[in-house]
Each structure stands twice: as C-alpha cells, then as structure tokens.
C-alpha cells in the first residue's frame, strides 16, 4: 500500500456504533411505509402431510383482512427458484413461497394472511382452516436412508439428493502401509444461527418498480430471485438493506417468505411488511450443521497419518436453500479435509439427504464438520496410540513455507498452524497445565485440556470455493462534489464493521482522514453485483482489495486534475491529510473540494471532459489468495456430580495476516468462540423421532449468555503473505474450531472414565453418561 499507514492497524472506533448504540439504526422493522399492510403466515403443525383443503373464508371475513393467499396462488402466478451454488447433480424441486399439496416440515408456510395490522393478520391466520392427511415422517439420517420410509419429494423419487465420491492422493497405499487403523463416527447436531434481528422485509410496488427493504447478506441474489419468481425484469427490482442485526449465514439464502412478501406487494400494489417473531424464527427460518462423518485413519505407530477415508451424510431438511443448497459444501469438505496437515490421501463418500425438517442454511463456517471430525480424530489417534495430542499434530503438520500443497491440490499459502500451536502451548504453559491436571486428578477432580487447529479459506487459495467460480469482487470509489470520498461496496455488513474497516483502507490509500470516507452498502441500485455479499469471510481480502484498487485509480484521476490546476506533474503530487501538495512544497496546497469543484462544475477550461467524472469501479480477484489459521486451547473442569462444565481458561492464537482493525478482529474471534461454546453445551434445534419440532422458544433453545462465556485471551500472529492485499478474513475461524477444542478438552477430562465423544452436543446429562455416572440412553 502506498504512503504511510495511519488508520489501518489501529482499533479505530466503529463508525456504525454511534448509530446502532443510540437506537438510531435502521433495521427491517424500522421501515414504515404509508398505507402498508402486514402479513401473518399460517404454518404447518405437522412434519409431513398432504393438504386436503384450505378454507380461507372465515379469515377473509375478518374486518381488516385484505387478502389471503395459498400455495395454489404461487403455483399459478410465480416461478420456482433453484440453487445457484452446488453441483448440477444435486437434485431438488424448484422452490415456491408456500407449500402446494403437501407440507414437509413443522412450520412450512401454507397460507399468507394480509391485513391492515399485524394483530388483525394474526387473528385472521387463526381462522384459516387447513385439512391435513398426516403422512409418516422422515426425522433423521437413518430414516432418510431407509427405503421403507415415504419419499418427501415425489418428483425426485428418493430422499437421497446427492452422492459423490472424491479421491485424492494414494488412499489404498496409505491403508496398506498402516500400523493401525482408527475408526470413529462424529456427528453434529442441528443448531440455528439465531441473529438478534430475525428475517423480514417490506416490499413496495410503485411506478413499475418493485423495491424490497430487506435484511439480506446477499441483496443482489435476492433481487435476482425476486425478479425470476415474479417474472419481472431484473431492472424493475431493487433490494435495499440498511442495518442488519446479525445473520451468521442465515441471510445468504433467499427465503420463501421474501418471495411471498414481494409477490403480495406486486399483486396488491400496496406496501406489504412481514417481520418474523422469535417463535416463527426458531421454527421456520432454518437451521444448520446437522451431519454425520464416519472417519477411518491409516496411521503409523508414531502418529503419522498416511491416509483418511470418510463417509459423510448431510441432512438438508426438506427444502433446498437457494442460492446455497445445504449439502453444497460436501465438495468443500472434500477439498479442505487435510487442513494444515500433510496427509497422503483422502477418499470421501458424501451423501445429502432430505428429511422433514426445516431448511439447512449456511452458518458461520458451514463446512465445519471437516474441522471438527479431523481435530477430534487427531485426539482419538493420540489416545489410541498413547501419544500427546500436540505431538500427533506436530508429526503431521505440512511445512509452513508456502510450498506445501494439500492432496486436494490447494496450496497452504499463509497457513501458520504449526506456529500457532506452539505459541498456544507456550502461552498457556502446557507442561504446567498437564502437571496441574495430574495433581487435580489425584484429588479426584475432573479437569481436561483440549486444543485444535484450523485453516479458514478467507479467501483461500484461488478457486477454493464454489467449484472454481471466479471470486472477484468490485467496489466503486467516488470523489463527491464537496471533496468527500464515497465507497460503494457489495458487502452487506451485519456486524462486521465494514463501514469502518473499508473506510480505514480507503482513507490510507487515498491520503485522507477516515472521517472523510463514507462507505455505502446494501442497495442494489448503487452497489456492484455480487453473488454472495457478506459471507465466506471474503471481505478482508476481497472487498478490501476492491476498495484499494478503486481508491488508487480514483486517486490517480484526482491527481491528474490537480496537476492541471497546479501546473505540475501528477507524479510530483501527494495527498496528505486530505490536502494535495507538490512533494517538498508544503506551501502550495489544493483541497480535494477544490479539485471536485473544478471537475464537477467545469470552471477550469483546462480540464477536459473525460476527467469530469471522479468515479472509478475496480475489481480484485484475490491475488494468490491464502489462509487464515490458528489454534484454540482451553482447559475445563467438570463437576462429575451434576455434569456441569466450567472453563478454567480459553486461549486463541489466530493469524489473519495484518489486522485492519484489531478490536474488530477480536470481536469476531470472541463472537465465534461464544457460538462454539453455545453449540457444544447449550444449543440444539431439536426434533423428535417423528420430526416434531421441540425448540421453538428460548426456554428450549438455549443461547449462552455473557455468564456462560469464559474470558478469552487472544494472541495475534500477523504473518503477512507476500501479496498486495495482506489481510485475511476472520469471520468464521472462531466458530469453526471452537467446538473441536472444547470437545477435545471434555474428552480429555473424561479420559480416566474411558469416554469417547461422538456427538458434539454435550448437555450436563450427556457428560454424566460419558463419565458413566448415569446409564447411557
């Protein structure tokens, strides 16, 4: 980066915070349009049933109810949408907003009541009479693979939607040469993203254009799907986000309710609003993670892993997500499985099944089964071979010089796992921890130490994601008429602080104070296209690169105009603190406002027309890409009488290259760890064996609160790859690896009792079962 860095690398206060913390942000529910109508959905109480009839007459009789739509309206008047990411052989039925003929999960929307207030809409919804014929349900992976169970989508003819086998390296040779073969099954339960702001939006159709005020991580994709679904020109649809109260991957996909709300506004030519309540959110927004991995490792006595075989089944629930199908990351698991380790070969058999549950959506590190099962397997190997888990990892780390290639062919550029593990062991005084563990055990206490490493494709080497699609991202930089700098990004920030970080980057590149830069986002009318807006930890590298390039090119343009005015050569001009001056002649000064005025108002005849537009759109392709990586280490103590798990310490050593804003990096890390603690100890989107949903309130779905999160110590390594853009993403790594570190610590604590953790969810009762204190279920 040119010039002296002033803002990048500092924990500049977040630009967003004044607005958000003073309650003056603008979220989906803050959009209030005159004459607006409100929606309540009628949802299926059954997991799987045929819809025999729907009687909407009583609802329509309610004073204030304007319309009631059912599946047949959408079948007749809209087009189904399909995923855009994921392999072509992944079978699905195009998705309509409401259920037609059949319901496929509890919470499946069957009717939509539109009224002059939400109260009336809900009263109307109570009166919609749906007659169902209940069908046997498919509640889990085993039931889905059982041919005796009914098929959820008749047109597909099977509950298995996708199957792939992927082989890299020499797997058979590895298994032939092994001293020991270690097998274990690791399953992840369903959890939900649970952002503070749920889903919702307000759609308005006026003057031939449909505008949807949404809460979306991918506004451009949402726009395309709305247009496709309603048969409108893309140009006639605009999606606008302002503030987003969290998403964690949930809001990448276009939701069926989004399509319903837009259709209703289009059909009625009146603003239509729907904001989901928490109950609805937990029931029907979708969930994540549910998958089962059977792993087999060919290992030498010294812990060297020669090869791995995996059998993965992902439970996508009933309806496929679009653009990102729930099982679509099976390919990512195949590519990422070796992580930072030099493993000789990997064979993955992966299947995606449908069940009568809500849609599987992305959740912060959607491919996490890869890291969890691998890092668990490393600990299992250590236990089976009586080695220290640190030594097993050391034995297998690939060299850290950027030369190493994973068997999948990806380079390990930027990964510093070996370094972060050593640093974590050193920082936590691992030897002393082990000694105090031995002492505690002698006193009858139950303490454990666990750690795990990860690499995070943020952005990853070229073509890591999405089967080799181009991953470039664009940004627009504009010098406004008053001399201020505007940046337009296709990110859709929802907690990441991009208004701050991108302003820091642009300010340094341009030579202005951060306060002179305003970052605009979320409006498809003025931001560049992107398939995924904010997701995949892309922003730090991709959005930053785009901002860097557009700012740099704009600066060159500005200096050309300035050069005309100052009768100097652009090469001799600098911008310092927002003022243009010739090198070494600080007394000659020109403000950016002067340049803008000259350019836009054209008062200077010297300036030709091509220089009138001080706006540049530029894209960045990620360069060589590279990994963010790190190690988490925690110590736990378990109360063997109650099964309660307490953290003695939690340490993160992370490396995301140079940090743009350390406070934001730490916020991302802490949030990820908190969600990891939640995932292992508290959160479960539970369905019973008949696919009835059991966790539709916060009394049942337990989110950790501040009291449950241990103090988190963070150490940063800032290995800067030799790249133009040396920042790496940090959005997903915290949650990616935390469950592995935590479950490894719990298993370590319970090792004297022969415990083996196969299911990630460990409420107190499960801990006591593992310890043999109470009988296994």
């Amino acid at each position, binding site marked *: 980066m040119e010039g002296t860095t002033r803002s990048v690398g500092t924990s500049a206060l977040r630009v967003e915070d004044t607005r958000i913390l003073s309650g003056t942000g603008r979220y989906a529910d803050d959009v209030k349009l005159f004459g607006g109508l409100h929606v309540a959905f009628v949802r299926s109480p059954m997991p799987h049933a045929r819809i025999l009839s729907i009687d909407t007459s009583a609802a329509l009789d309610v004073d204030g109810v304007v319309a009631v739509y059912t599946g047949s309206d959408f079948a007749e008047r809209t087009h189904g949408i399909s995923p855009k990411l994921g392999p072509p052989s992944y079978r699905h039925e195009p998705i309509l907003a409401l259920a037609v003929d059949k319901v496929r999960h509890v919470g499946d929307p069957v009717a939509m009541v539109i009224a002059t207030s*939400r*109260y009336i809409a*809900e*009263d109307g919804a*109570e009166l919609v009479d749906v007659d169902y014929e209940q069908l046997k349900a498919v509640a889990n992976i085993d039931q889905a693979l059982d041919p005796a169970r009914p098929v959820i989508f008749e047109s597909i003819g099977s509950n298995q939607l996708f199957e792939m086998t992927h082989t890299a390296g020499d797997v058979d040779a590895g298994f032939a040469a092994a001293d020991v073969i270690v097998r274990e099954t690791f399953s992840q339960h369903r959890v939900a993203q649970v952002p503070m702001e749920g889903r919702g939006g307000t759609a308005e159709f006026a003057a031939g254009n449909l505008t949807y005020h949404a809460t979306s991580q991918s506004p451009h994709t949402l726009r395309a799907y709305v247009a496709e679904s309603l048969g409108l020109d893309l140009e006639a649809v605009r999606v606008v986000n302002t503030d987003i109260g969290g998403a964690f991957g949930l809001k990448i996909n276009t939701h069926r309710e989004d399509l319903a709300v837009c259709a209703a506004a289009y059909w009625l030519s009146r603003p239509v609003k729907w904001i989901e*309540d*928490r*109950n*609805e959110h937990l029931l029907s927004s979708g969930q994540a993670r549910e998958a089962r991995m059977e792993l087999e490792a060919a290992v030498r006595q010294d812990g060297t892993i020669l090869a791995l075989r995996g059998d993965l089944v992902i439970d996508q629930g009933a309806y496929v997500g679009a653009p990102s199908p729930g099982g679509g990351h099976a390919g990512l698991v195949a590519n990422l499985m070796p992580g930072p380790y030099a493993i000789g070969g990997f064979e993955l058999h992966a299947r995606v099944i449908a069940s009568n549950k809500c849609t599987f959506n992305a959740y912060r590190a959607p491919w996490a089964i890869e890291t969890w099962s691998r890092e668990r397997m490393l600990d299992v190997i250590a236990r089976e071979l009586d080695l220290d888990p640190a030594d097993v990892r050391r034995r297998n780390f690939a060299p850290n010089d950027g030369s190493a290639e994973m068997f999948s062919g990806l380079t390990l550029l930027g990964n510093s796992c070996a370094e972060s593990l050593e640093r974590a062991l050193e920082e936590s005084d691992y030897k002393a921890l082990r000694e105090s563990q031995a002492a505690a055990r002698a006193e009858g206490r139950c303490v454990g130490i666990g750690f795990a490493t990860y690499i995070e494709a943020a952005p990853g080497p070229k073509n890591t994601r999405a089967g080799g699609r181009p991953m470039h991202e664009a940004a627009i930089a504009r010098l406004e008429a008053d001399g201020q700098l505007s940046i337009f990004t296709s990110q859709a920030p929802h907690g990441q602080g991009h208004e701050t970080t991108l302003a820091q980057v642009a300010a340094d590149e341009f030579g202005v104070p951060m306060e002179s830069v305003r970052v605009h986002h979320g409006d498809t009318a003025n931001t560049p296209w992107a398939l995924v807006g904010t997701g995949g930890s892309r922003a730090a590298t991709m959005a930053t690169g785009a901002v860097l390039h557009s700012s740099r090119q704009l600066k060159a343009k500005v200096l050309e105009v300035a050069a005309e005015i100052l009768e100097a050569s652009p090469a001799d001009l600098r911008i310092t603190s927002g003022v243009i001056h010739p090198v070494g002649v600080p007394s000659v000064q020109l403000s950016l406002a002067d340049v803008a005025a000259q350019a836009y108002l054209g008062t200077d005849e010297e300036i030709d027309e091509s220089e009138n537009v001080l706006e540049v759109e530029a894209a960045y392709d990620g360069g060589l890409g590279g990994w963010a990586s790190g190690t988490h280490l925690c110590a736990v103590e378990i109360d063997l*009488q*109650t*099964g*309660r798990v307490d953290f003695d310490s939690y340490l993160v050593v992370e490396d995301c290259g140079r940090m743009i804003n350390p406070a934001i990096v730490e916020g991302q890390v802490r949030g990820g760890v908190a969600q990891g603690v939640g995932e292992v*100890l*508290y959160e*479960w989107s*539970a369905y019973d064996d008949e696919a009835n949903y*059991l*966790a539709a*309130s916060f*009394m*049942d779905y*337990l989110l*950790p*609160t501040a*009291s*449950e999160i241990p103090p988190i110590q963070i150490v940063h390594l800032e290995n800067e790859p030799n790249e133009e853009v040396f920042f790496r993403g940090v959005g997903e790594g915290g949650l990616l690896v935390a469950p592995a570190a935590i479950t490894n610590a719990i298993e370590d604590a319970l090792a004297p009792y022969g415990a083996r953790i196969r299911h990630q969810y460990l*409420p*107190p*009762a499960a801990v*006591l079962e593992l310890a043999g*204190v*109470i*009988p296994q*279920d």
Partner: protein
Amino acid sequence: MIPAQFDYVRATSAEHALQLLGEHGDDAKLLAGGHSLLPMMKLRLAMPSVLIDIAGLPDLSGVRRDGDDVVIGALTKHGELAASEILEREAPLVAHAAGLVGDPQIRHRGTIGGSLAHADPAADLPSALLASDGWLELQGPEGTRRVAVDDFFTGYFETVLQPDELVVAIGTPRRMGAGWGYEKFTRRANDWGIVTVATVGGRVALGNMGPTSLRARATEQALARGASIPDAAELAAEGTEPVTDLHADGEYRSHLARVLTRRALTRAAG
C-alpha cells in the same frame, strides 16, 4: 407472538377484583407481574377475554411478622423478598430462593402470589414455601380461607385456587436460626431450575421432579429415623416421576435430586 384480543380493567381493591372476577367468570384472568401470564398469552396458550390488573392494589404487598409467622402480601415482588430484612432473619430460605428467580428484571415484576397461583413445578418459591411448611390465604366471594402449601398444588399448573378466588397472602413459620439449604441446578445463569431442592427443619421439597413441587418423603422419613445425610439423600427421588424434556431426562433428574438433596442437607446441617 401477539396475544388475542382482550379487555383490560384495573381493580381498585381486593373486593373490586373479586367482584370483577364474579362478573366475568372463567373468561377473566388476574394480572399481577405478568411474567408468566403474558408469555402464555403471546403464544396464545392463554386467551382470556378480560385481564383484571391487581398489580397496583395497595394492601397486598409487603412482609410483616404476625405471631409465630411471617406474612407476605401476595403482590410482593421477588426482589422485595430477596431484600427483606425480616425474611433474611426469620425465613432466609424464602429470601434466598426469591433472589434466584430469573434475572433482576423478572424479580422486579414477578410476584409471590403470581408464582404460587401459576404453580409451575420448576419455580423457586413453591418449593421454598413447601419446605418451609407455609400457607396461603385465599379470599373468595364467601370470605377467606387458609390452605397449607402442602395441600395447595394439585397438578401441573393446577391448584385448589378457584376461578373466583384471589391469593391475598402467603405465610411461613418464623424459623430464626434454623439450618436451611437451597440448591438450584440450572444450565445457564438465569434459567429455571432443572431440579431444585429446598430444605429446612427436616422437611425437604423438590422442584421440577413431577407435576408439582413435592416433598421428598422417603428422605424426610430417613432423616427422622436418624439416617446419615448421604443415606437419606439417596432416597430423594423415591416415588417421583420426573419429566423428560429437552434439558434433561427423568433418569438424570433423579440423579440430580439425590446430589442436590445431599448438598442442601449438608448446608442445612453446617
């Protein structure tokens, strides 16, 4: 999560509340702190057509001594119980349990009368008052009656309280200096107990071990026979049929009942 339509009336006295209850019958519900009733209404699990707000009734709040008892107005809030000096000296078990209800916001709205009338088996105050050998004063159209907490709870969210009755006061014997213990195992800091155990004066009450708060009779009898604490605690779950829910199965709850009873008794003895 929007309640069905309802009317709202504010009662000006206990008598007025009773008169309103008489007028509206089963369709009416008393509203105290609202922290159990309103969530049920938002989920449309309760759809009263009239809410009779008693939260502001002046005479039904506060803690006082009355002979051998401490008497607590039904509208006294959990936070006030936790901070009451009288309770702290003479019925510390009740004060302590009240201080563990939910979080500060809940303790500043929820009332003891509401908690008992709601009769959630997982709630803190019912078990604390059951162990304390407490009683309730109920006022109805025919006058007032006193019911022992032992006889008050009849089933899951069910009590002997009649639809036209009001809980006006709750009492507990004064137990200056008596050893007591209260154990509440929660998954998160501010949660309901997975199991709770309250003990004072040889009585042991369990929360969330069945449809109502209930006595651990086998443990009490063992203690009366002079059994050791560990031996008596082993019997804590005897005769109970704890529910299985998302947080715990019956087996685990029974185990917890034994563990927490041992802890509570040990504390009471210490």
